[in-house]
């Protein structure tokens, strides 16, 4: 596999796309072909199943290069494959059942396990060890952050401000906008203006707003300062003025997320039956009363989902800080700071992991809420 990727990296960039996709398609094709013929009765297919069960694990071990460190691993994998075949042969779901299940589920589950579950556990572990991972230090890394080391405490507070402020304002403006334009002429066109920033990267949005906030000696080229000048004020170096700069950076995130909130809430508003609105109207409710007593209760679940989703985005946001202030002048957040600590030479693995863990703890309530929801949904099915 290393050889393949090395060879691939030598190709012109655009040629790499079809090559790697064809290679991938061949592997998936083989999986599907095997899954198709696996349950067929007859000696030939039994032999095929046995061969696949024994050979594939061994080949995977070879491809991953594990044999370099342990030659004996290849036969072990083959033997385990054989055991798998026996298990499959006697499975209650019929011959080929276990192998088929593995063929469908294993690629995704292995990747999720390696890419998310294992790193999560590893990072939690590292947060209790020193920066060079050599000795156990207990909660020292966390104590260091909370005592303000490497700007940790300010960054943590900033991060919490981001998470609390962004979703509230973005959801509020998104909801107001969705209500304002509902059933109006040109609703679709009006939607696009606010929705478009959703497709713009945080990096692009950051540069758009850096220019908007730009500060110059003499003639202003940033609109915000020019407006200040027009009204007789003094231009301000916005992004270097703390704590105003935090608010202005949060504006960037609000700008990108409002459209998302608007689209979700707009769809929910359209889901409220017209009769409810009409009934309220007949009872003499005015527009605001109808909004409070019909619209809001009707879309409450969507408001919660929107709010949670934007909170999660604000927790993870790294790009805006990276593309604007790089955490200078009191704008740092732990989701940015931990990457810097990790990229240090030598990497501050302990502190960095501890900040990542704090980030995860902040996200945990949302995770539990979501998991609970989906559990209820699935049990209800």
């Amino acid at each position, binding site marked *: 596999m290393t050889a393949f990727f090395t060879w691939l990296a030598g190709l012109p960039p655009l040629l790499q796309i079809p090559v790697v996709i064809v290679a991938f398609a061949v592997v998936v094709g083989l999986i599907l072909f095997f899954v198709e013929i696996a349950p067929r009765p007859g000696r030939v297919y039994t032999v095929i199943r046995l061969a696949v069960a024994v050979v594939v694990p061994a080949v995977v071990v070879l491809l991953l290069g594990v044999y370099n460190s342990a030659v004996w691993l290849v036969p072990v994998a083959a033997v385990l494959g054989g055991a798998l075949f026996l298990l499959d042969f006697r499975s209650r779901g019929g011959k080929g059942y276990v192998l088929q299940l593995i063929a469908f589920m294993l690629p995704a589950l292995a*990747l999720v396990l390696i890419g998310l579950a294992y790193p999560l556990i590893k990072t939690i572990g590292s947060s209790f060890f020193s920066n060079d991972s050599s000795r156990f230090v207990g909660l020292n890394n966390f104590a260091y952050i909370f005592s303000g080391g490497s700007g940790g405490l300010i960054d943590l507070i900033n991060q919490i401000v981001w998470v609390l402020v962004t979703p509230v304002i973005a959801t509020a403006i998104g909801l107001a906008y969705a209500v304002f334009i509902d059933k109006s002429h040109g609703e679709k066109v009006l939607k696009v203006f606010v929705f478009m920033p959703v497709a713009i990267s945080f990096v692009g949005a950051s540069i758009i707003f850096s220019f908007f906030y730009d500060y110059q000696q003499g003639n202003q080229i940033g609109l915000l300062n020019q407006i200040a000048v027009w009204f007789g004020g003094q231009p301000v170096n916005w992004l270097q003025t703390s704590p105003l700069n935090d608010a202005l950076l949060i504006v960037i995130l609000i700008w990108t997320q409002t459209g998302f909130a608007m689209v979700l809430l707009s769809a929910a508003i359209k889901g409220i039956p017209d009769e409810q609105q009409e009934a309220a109207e007949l009872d003499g409710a005015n527009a605001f009363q109808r909004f409070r007593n019909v619209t809001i209760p009707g879309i409450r679940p969507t408001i919660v989902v929107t709010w949670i989703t934007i909170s999660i985005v604000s927790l993870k946001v790294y790009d805006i800080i990276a593309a604007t202030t790089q955490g200078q002048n009191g704008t740092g957040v732990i989701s940015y700071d931990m990457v810097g600590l990790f990229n240090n030479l030598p990497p501050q693995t302990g502190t960095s992991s501890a900040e990542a863990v704090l980030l995860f703890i902040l996200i945990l309530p949302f995770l539990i809420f979501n998991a609970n929801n989906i559990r209820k949904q699935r049990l209800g099915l």
Partner: protein
Amino acid sequence: MIATDVDPRSARKVAAATRRAESNAFKNAKNRLTSRGATIAAIVIAVLWTIPTFGLFVTSFRPPADINTSGWWTVFANPALTISNYVNTLNFDDGGISVGQSFLNSLVIVIPATVFPIVIAALAAYGFAWINFRGKNLLFILVFSLQIVPIQVAISPLLSLFSTGLTIGNWAVFPGLNLNSVADSFARIWISHTMFALPLAIFLLHNFISAIPADIMEAARVDGAGHGQIFLRIVLPLSTPAIASFAILQFLWVWNDLLVGTIFTSGGNFPITKVITDLAGNFGQSWYLLSAGSFLAIILPLIVFFALQRFFVRGLLAGATKG
């Protein structure tokens, strides 16, 4: 004969109806009034939301000398426009790769990183939906939960897994990808993006695949199709809308990503977001570069967005938890 005498009851009804109509007309007028206020508020928001983008967009077409001496709003008084900023930016090379090359890199990253998770997740989603096994619900909830784990949590262990592998005691469980000497390999970023995308992809596709009527599956099975054929001939074609929705989400997510690109690429294969961020750090006042550069970076997502908005919205509505 025309009935001339009117039943008093129906007269009352008519009067009531008239009153109601009048009060309705009054109410409608009031509603229209508030809705006019609402429309004005909406237009104000729309303008506020558009001006920053518009300002930078206009700037990207102004000669560099003008950009730094006068505001973009003066362009309406004395219009002088050029596309040379874009040409210069595409070729601009800050001692690494040019912005144009980084655009290609983003393309090389985004296409496989969109295709891989879709296919792998579709396989798993089919397994979750149509193959019964013990612990299925619990496994599904676990995978779903991992969807919002911050990437920040995963980068350090994953990077060391790629470069030095995993060693427990003296035993190297996995020796790493051995790509440390191959500077410009995209393998690491393809794999990382695929891993990070899978939970959401599985969730979205599962919602759709599990809703396919069981009769169709049964009919195919009676006709002698196995899981392979059912997946290829029935499930994939029927889930095109869900696949399209996820593909757009993933395309935008990968193209716009900075963090994964920063960690899992190096020098020669930086994506455009990384190169533009570096430009912003090193040339913060060179607005001719930054304006043109950021529009080069957002042009493709915007095209995708406008062309496929319907699928995009559907994807957002279906999977509103990914950050």
